[in-house]
């Protein structure tokens, strides 16, 4: 088996059950070398569970997970030599300074690019002389990010890595992941910040209640979904809701907004007859895709609204 075409991450029927809760059910996932894959889902969908299974921190109830062809649990040490992980709520040793933490984590990892580490400290504007307990939340998160990125590991596993980062640092993060992609590193990124996923990822998987409900490139996902149309009318706004394929009509004065599934022709015919003065149409953003899928009008159990903290 050649190293290049073997998948970096491969899970088969991966399942994790906690006393009656199905945290993850039958996950079949493949991530190829060099891919940047986004992993989305509402709170409690099972993203962190997936990642902890991949890291071998918890045991699968059934199914298998392999990274670089090695079993995630049995060969965890060998797997960890080639990956780096960032968690969303990492706790660090409060009495160590930033520099001490980076040194320690680098030594435990074994192989780090010190020059790149220094560059990252600059880029993220981190003061490494401060003790962890005195760092703000965002600065603590930067420390964990730098510790992972400076390893230049073949696989980056990131679980909500930008929680608490300000917009400037969010940019620095995107730049760094871009660099990783350009170097051929594989990235597995779970996030609630959909613009981030949209900007970085080649493929996106969407998880819901422990099941992978969608997996594909952004273009593929859009294809499955609706087109957003916004029309401004000179006179009376016509009844759009009855047109086949049109949904979620919102009328605001002379402006009507709606979603179109399938062919747009019936809508266009109505618009042309009604005297449109302005027309905007665009493909849905990932956020809209996500909201459309989980925004409540969907059937099934109630899901917490997807938050995007600090996205501004």
């Amino acid at each position, binding site marked *: 088996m050649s190293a290049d075409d073997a998948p970096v991450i491969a899970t088969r029927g991966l399942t994790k059950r906690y006393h009656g809760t199905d945290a993850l059910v039958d996950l079949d996932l493949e991530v190829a070398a060099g891919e940047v894959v986004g992993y989305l889902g509402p709170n409690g969908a099972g993203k962190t569970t997936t990642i902890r299974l991949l890291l071998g*921190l918890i*045991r699968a109830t059934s199914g298998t997970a392999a990274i670089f062809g090695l079993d995630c649990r049995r060969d965890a040490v060998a797997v*960890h030599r080639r990956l780096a992980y960032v968690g969303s709520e990492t*706790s660090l*040793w409060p009495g160590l300074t930033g520099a*001490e933490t980076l040194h*320690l984590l680098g030594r435990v990892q074994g192989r780090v690019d010190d020059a790149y580490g220094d560059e990252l400290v600059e880029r993220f504007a981190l003061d490494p002389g401060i003790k962890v307990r005195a760092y703000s939340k965002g600065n603590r998160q930067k420390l*964990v990010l730098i510790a992972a990125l400076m390893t230049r590991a073949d696989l980056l596993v990131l679980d909500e890595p930008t929680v608490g980062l300000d917009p400037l640092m969010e940019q620095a993060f995107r730049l760094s992941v871009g660099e990783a992609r350009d170097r051929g590193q594989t990235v597995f990124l779970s996030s609630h910040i959909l613009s981030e996923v949209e900007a970085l990822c080649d493929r996106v998987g969407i998880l819901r209640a422990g099941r992978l409900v969608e997996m594909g490139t952004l273009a593929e996902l859009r294809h499955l979904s609706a087109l957003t149309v916004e029309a401004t009318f000179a006179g009376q706004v016509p009844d759009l809701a009855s047109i086949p394929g049109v949904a979620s009509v919102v009328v605001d004065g002379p402006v009507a907004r709606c979603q179109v599934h399938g062919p747009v022709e019936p809508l266009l015919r109505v618009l042309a007859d009604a005297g449109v003065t302005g027309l905007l149409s665009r493909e849905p953003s990932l956020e809209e895709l996500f909201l459309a899928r989980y925004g409540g009008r969907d059937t099934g159990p109630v899901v917490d609204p997807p938050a995007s903290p600090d996205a501004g």
Partner: protein
Amino acid sequence: MPADAPVAGASRRTRSPATVVAGRTALAASRSGAAWGAVFAVAVASSAVSYGTLYTSRASRRALADAYGSNHATSALFGPAPHLDTAAGFTAFKVGMSLMLLGAVWGLLTGTRLLRGEEDQGRWELLLAGGTTPRRATAQGLVGLGAGVAVLWALTAAGTVVAGHDPKVDIAVGSGCYFALAMVATAGMFAGVGAVAGQLVATRRQAAAWAATILGIAYAVRMVADAGVGLHGLVWASPLGWVEELGALTDPRPTALVPIAALTVVLAVVAVTLAGRRDLGAGLVPDRSRGRSRLGLLSGPMGLAVRLVRPTVLGWWAAIAVSGLLYGLVARSAATAVTGSSVHDVLSRLGATGSGAEAVLGVCFLVLAVLVAFAAAGQLTATRGEESSGRLDNLLTRPLSPAAWLGGRLAVAIVVLVVGGLLGGLAAWLGSASQHAGVRLGVVALAGLNLVPPALVVLGLGALALGLAPRAMSAVVYGYLAWSLLVVVIGGIGATGHWVLDTSVFHQMAASPAVPVDWTADAIMVGVAAVLAGCGIAAFGRRDLAGL
């Protein structure tokens, strides 16, 4: 019922945040007060009742009183024993010091947990944002703690009074309540010490360490006072001495309640005052946020472990060494007092060899063994803390196996215990040599090493619990330690050879340097510890990491 709903909602809204703190603290403190109170009650009642069955004849009671009544070694360790010819006096001596110390430990743990631990975990932030002040919250927290002490007192008093009803025991209701008050006095005082320490430093662990240091000093001062070296006045310099001066069940002297009450009130007032002067989540003693990076130890998980446990370990070593030194200092005069008495006979029957001072040290080293075993428990909770806090994730997501990590932590702990045992032995030798007590260095050093195997068993048991039931580990370890301690304390004076005694790890240890080290017993303990730890490490590698 729907009609009731608005009423319930309204009453919830009128409860002020400060009473919420009091209510929560009272509930938590009462719960643990009830658990410890049950232990207190059983300890008191069982030893009171056992007196009638163990010492049936007048002669045997007289012999007991002669042996311990003027024994400076036991008086230094457990306090004076004025009335061993009555069930009440026997009970006061047998459980008094243990309960006093346990009460103090309960007080400082509960005080720091409820007044500092809750805050550390961010639970106070919401309450304080909701309109109460830190001072009021602290005052209400102290009221809650008081409720816990009251529950502890009530159960202890109940145990004493019920047992005292037995005509063979014969303790009046009033004396029973007074005795229970003496037993929980340390709980109140050290809850106060814990509360004040919690205002001074920034974390619960640090606050508990400070409070424990003060308890250690209080014990050491009282020990010197009771060691028969002409310094009895020092008894008034230690809170534990005041409790002893209460003379519960023997010669009641309630005047000693004055300093006890005064200290408790002063500590409470100081805690409340200080609470208003500091930031939430910080201590009054400034904590440097900037530090020079010292990378020396941080080249791997073992080095990290050393760096993390260093401050606490230095504290344990100091406590063990100071205790050893004190035992050494008093050994000679204590030995003179016991020569020719029946204690001497008892010790000789146990196989005591060597000088009288060595025989006395044999009894004292039991306390050192307890300290070393508690140090082992401390290492275990620190290890578990790395996992429950999630800090361990940082290491185990890197090329380091769980087994290697846990093995490394246990190795560090073993070094801590071996050094601790040796330090205890050497310090005892130093102390006794300064008094020309004729104690042999080699013998005492070996006796120091002999303290280690029981602690290793505790370490092994904890490792197994860590592997199988991480969330219960602390309860298993401290529960077993408390059990072992209770068994030797209760069994120490009377019965021997009973199988219950064999369940105590301290009972398995030879009373060196009074008797030669029992290498077979030590080898068995080390073997048991190794098997337990091995199973624990294997189980740890097999299970999910578990948070709080």
